[in-house]
């Protein structure tokens, strides 16, 4: 299963970058979100997978015995999900604003700020 999930993560990364490379604005947003899923899964898979043993200390004990799921990546993912949501929401609204202001959804038209003076 961990092999299958690794491949799925790779596919999500590939799809995310593929969409980001499009010049259409919509595709870009989808791409950002896809990269977000991929990264969360990536973090999750870095630790050894376990089935059905959350990192909860039994009520009678002070510490937990192996096996239990690695809590460190989970904590990181929780942060990542929330921050990722912030980025997505901001990107969606920003691109909508850009689209309404410039009337173009083509990212290739939005390169004036990076032009080098001669």
């Amino acid at each position: 299963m961990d092999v299958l999930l690794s491949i799925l993560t790779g596919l999500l990364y590939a799809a995310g970058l593929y969409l980001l490379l499009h010049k259409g604005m919509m595709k870009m947003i989808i791409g950002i979100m896809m990269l977000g899923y991929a990264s969360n899964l990536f973090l999750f898979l870095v630790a050894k997978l376990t089935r059905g043993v959350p990192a909860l200390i039994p009520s009678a004990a002070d510490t937990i015995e192996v096996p239990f799921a690695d809590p460190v990546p989970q904590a990181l993912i929780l942060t990542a999900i929330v921050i990722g949501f912030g980025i997505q929401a901001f990107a969606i609204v920003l691109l909508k604003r850009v689209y309404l202001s410039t009337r173009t959804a083509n990212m290739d038209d939005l390169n004036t700020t990076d032009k080098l003076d001669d």
Partner: protein
Amino acid sequence: MEILLAVLLSFSGAILSPLVHGLTRKRGGALLSVIPFLLFAWASVKMWHVVDGATFQETIPWIQSLGLDLVFRIDGLSIFFLMLITGFGVLIHIYANAYLSHDTNKPRFFVFLSLFMGSMVGLVLSGSLLLLFVFWELTSLSSYMLIGYYHEREKSRDSALQAMLVTVLGGLFMLAGIVLLGADAGTLRIDELLANPQLVLNSPNINIILVLLLMGAFTKSAQFPFHFWLPNAMEAPAPVSAYLHSTTMVKAGVFLLARISPIFSELPLWTTLLPAVGGFTMVYGAVMALFSTDLKKILAYTTISALGIMVMLLGIGTVLAVQAAMVFVLAHALYKGTLFMVVGNIDHEAGTRDVNQLSGLRKAMPFTFVAAALAAMSMSGVLPFFGFVAKEILYGAAADSPGWSYLTLAAVFVAGAVFAALSIEIGYKIFFGDEAKLPKHPHEAPLGMLLGPLVASGFGLLGGVLVEQVAQPLLHHTSNVVHNVDSVLKLTLWHGFTLIFGLSLLTLAAGYGVYIIRSRVRAVAVRLNLSNLTGPESAYLQFIPSLLKVAKGQTRFFQSGLLRNYMVIISTFLVGTIALVAAFGNGSIPWANLFSSDFGFRWYEVLVVVAMLVALVLSISSQSRLTVIVSLGVIGYGTAMLFLFFGAPDVAMTQFLIETLTVVLFVLILFKLPKFVDVPLRVRLRLMVPAILFGAVMAFVLLWLHQSETSTALKDYFAQNSYVAAKGKNIVNVILVDFRGLDTLGEITVLGIAALGVYSLLKVRDVRRIGS
């Protein structure tokens, strides 16, 4: 602490200048001369101890991780240069205060000047090569600001940049040499290196180290072919030229050579390269000086020539040659510093520096004339000036040199004759004769601008007359430090009618001859276009624009303005580095069992993955925005399910919530968003290449990680401490709110800022429509 305080004091004018000028704008600079004066007094006291044979050393821990301590050292060599720097510091402060009296930026000038003086003081007092390098670079930086002081002139800015680039380039080579030396010798402390030169001499890289160090010295001391920045630096105000370009900074290279001479002077490379480069520079500088008609250019080229003499003498390396070098450093500083200030006066009061225009200034500028005449006589080596003493010992050292002594003598003779000719021109020609018509009606310079040249040239006379009482004890110890043998320096004004004295007289006669034919020589030089030869400078002049062109080209390439290209560059870089690590890294990759796992499958897990794959295909291929958003939702919920299956219920819950929110947000503004643009298959295929490579590499990293051992230290730590230390049973929860509580606070802040951004973007009205 005492030496450190002295170094700090030497920098203090940089802070005090604006305050002092706030008190008294007119005399601010003169008031600041108290600082070098105090330092000079301190140095004089120290000198008496040094003359008695003492050395002072102090170590203050600084950046110990870099092996960089504040090691300061006072010995015969550093005290000599320290007195030169602070002594001239006093004169230059007073001179500059008068010279720039009408300049609104005067306070700023003194900030730069103090920075420079502090850097020089630090440089000569450094007791470790690394510390010396730090101050070395500071002198380059502060000289950049001083040369470019008239920053509104393009020529001035270019010259400042050129001087800095050339000396900093040399400094970089020197740093490489220092690092190499430190690695091989195990220490950078000068006392340890001097006590045990074998530490360096045993290094297999000894010649490389020496060449790298010489690059620093040669660029700083304007040796051919790096000399060209010095004539260009004459764009600087006169006090800067007098201070940096004759008495102190350009001698930093000579100082470095003198510092390392006890270590390297036995090497064949040292005894061939230094005399060759120095000797050539000496003749080349003299000839170029003769070709020039701008007084400042003449002085700049004779300075180059004089620096060549010093380098050559240190390279010859006999006891007499080293003594001659140190005597000449002092003699040159006294007369050249004077002449630069004299020329500053003439430029300031008469409005031109062209020797052909100037004449008859004696009546208008009597005191300037006295200083000029005294300095010129010292420069040409007339009895009883200190320059005469220097010239005698110089001839003595040249005649005494172990190899090529006739060639050396001849070269010194040529340079000496040119020096004499130009001395007559500066000290006599421009002051006598008819009073010429000049851009300004000439009159005597103010007192502040006379004090410096008169005092310095007066010392040139005094040093000659009282040579046994004043110069000898000081320079005796200086040269003993440089050649590291205890020998006796014998300086006398009058040797009797020796061969050397005859040579001195002959030089003066030849100098007079050159003076007579100088106009014809210059005419020939103009006809052959010799004075405008750029020479090695053309390499610089071509290099800088091509460097800028390359910089522009690569910026254009990487910064195309197309988001797509940025993404491709970033992902390609990532793929490339991981491929490099995989191919050449230390870890071996278990290619055979990369896909093997004993974790097993459950049917519901596979079902979720299949659903996600279907959604994935749909989301990249569908043209309907609604379908894509629903597919995205499926992928999001799918990952949440996976989190749930594999022991992460908290993460799953968060993912469910966020996913829902995202879909809601999307649907809310869906129809305000642009439609999909149709992309031809050819383009799509081209975009797939980097994407698939990227995905493959990321999957590979994960698979690779599964086959390797990972540390469980953190996992164990949290398992042990979550309840015991933080009283929480849900470990993930405890990490977030307790162990990493501050991170979570940061996360909330980020989210808050994003929310503010979203809100304001939604509220803002379309005030400015771009493109309409």
